[in-house]
């Protein structure tokens, strides 16, 4: 569904992505992990066309995405830190995005679950980090997209809200959508993902199915398996 071919990106003299190749298919739930500054967010932003690569290409359903926008109709994106126009209220933001996307049938599960209706008139600048994340999550799932890109989705959410989001991710996974999650909380990925991609210094170090990963490392959970590999034991 999404194919990335030899992607390079430099910010000034800093090489953020070095020859990234990746194929992501329908129905997968992929965890994109790695230390801070390894290029996860840049990779995601390149897929979304917010960052333009120096070389290489991203394909969506076999079509190159450079300078096109229609494929974004199929993507729901939840940024790491949601930044919204400060003088708009939650209602304004939701209304504006609905307006811009045109007449879609909307999926308001998260809107209802997070009870956004009660705080629609609150201005974005007065929202706490967690509430902003709730708005981001609602927007990402609102148009029932085929691909969900979630950048640190549960960071800043309270346990109940995080649980609601996880359940939503699981139910969308059942619906056969492609879901890409970046996270540092390896423990919460266990129940969600079926593939793990580990990035380091702008390169993909390994890319395994979860079952294969557990088998190779002889560990029970993703976090233990990753730690095991990183400690250098039985490097595969």
């Amino acid at each position, binding site marked *: 569904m999404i194919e990335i071919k030899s992607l390079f990106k430099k910010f000034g003299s800093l090489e953020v992505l070095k020859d990234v190749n990746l194929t992501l298919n329908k129905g997968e739930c992929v965890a994109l992990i790695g230390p801070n500054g390894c290029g996860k967010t840049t990779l995601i932003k390149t897929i979304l066309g917010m960052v*333009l690569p120096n070389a290489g290409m991203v394909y969506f359903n076999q079509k190159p995405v450079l300078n096109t*926008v229609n*494929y974004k*109709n199929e993507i729901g994106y939840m940024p790491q830190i949601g*930044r919204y126009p400060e003088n708009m209220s939650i209602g304004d933001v939701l209304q504006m995005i609905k307006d811009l*996307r045109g007449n879609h049938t909307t999926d308001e599960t998260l809107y209802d679950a997070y009870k956004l209706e009660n705080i629609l008139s609150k201005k974005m600048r007065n929202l706490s980090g967690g509430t902003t994340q709730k708005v981001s999550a609602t927007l990402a799932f609102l148009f029932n997209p085929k691909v969900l890109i979630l950048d640190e989705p549960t960071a800043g959410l309270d346990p109940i809200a995080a649980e609601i989001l996880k359940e939503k991710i699981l139910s969308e996974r059942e619906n056969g959508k492609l879901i890409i999650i970046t996270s540092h909380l390896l423990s919460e990925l266990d129940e969600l993902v079926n593939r793990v991609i580990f990035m380091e210094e702008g390169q993909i170090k390994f890319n395994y199915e979860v079952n294969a990963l557990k088998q190779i490392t002889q560990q029970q959970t993703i976090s233990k398996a990753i730690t095991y590999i990183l400690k250098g034991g039985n490097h595969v």
Partner: protein
Amino acid sequence: MYKIIRFVLLDVLKSKVLLSYLLLLATITWGVFSLEDNSTKGVLTLLNIMLLTVPLVSIIFSTIYVYNSAEFIELLVSQPIKRTKIWTGLYLGINLALFIAFSIGMGIPIVYMQGFEIGLMVYSVGVLISCAFVSLALFSAVYTRDKTRGIGAAIMQWLFFTLLFDALVVLFLFQFSDYPIEELMVGITLLSPVDIARILVILQMDIAAMLGHTGAIFKAFFGTTWGLIIAYIVLCLWSFIPFVISLQKFRKKDL
């Protein structure tokens, strides 16, 4: 794209800055007309004030607005909307809002007080100057990521076009006063939107005769229909070219 224009327009119209701008222009206009009994002098005073305030407000306000919309722009880019449409929508939205404020505060009152010939000239020139400086604001805002520097660049541009450029021209005139540079002066004038605007209006009035030999040559150029058309085209280019350059840059910008 009209959705973005509408959104930006409503957002700007809601801001207090625009309302103060409107009130400022209205106060100046009514003040000048009630103080000056000679209407030609009134238009000249008004023209000079207009050529200081309109560029200043247009460039500073748009620069700040573009920087404050950084989040909004980022949000839009992650949605299925072409970058060209986002940037053009922003440009047209700001221009439209400033146009409304200028029309109500200054443009329409001038046409009402001065009649169509001079009134429409001042009105149209004011609108084009406003567009030119919004265009320059977008140009400097897209090239500098830092807000403070961007605003600094905007103030520098305003200073350059309203004060420094004239000083340089005078210096140039004195240095080369022994040579026949009058024709060259016409070309140099076209390099500053503020000067084109000023000369366009002045030459429509009888006082042009007081400008001496250079004035006569200016009159020979700008006084003709072709001169007028060229001057208007150059003014339009000033509101267009910086914007188009900024658009090219914005299409390739990492957000």
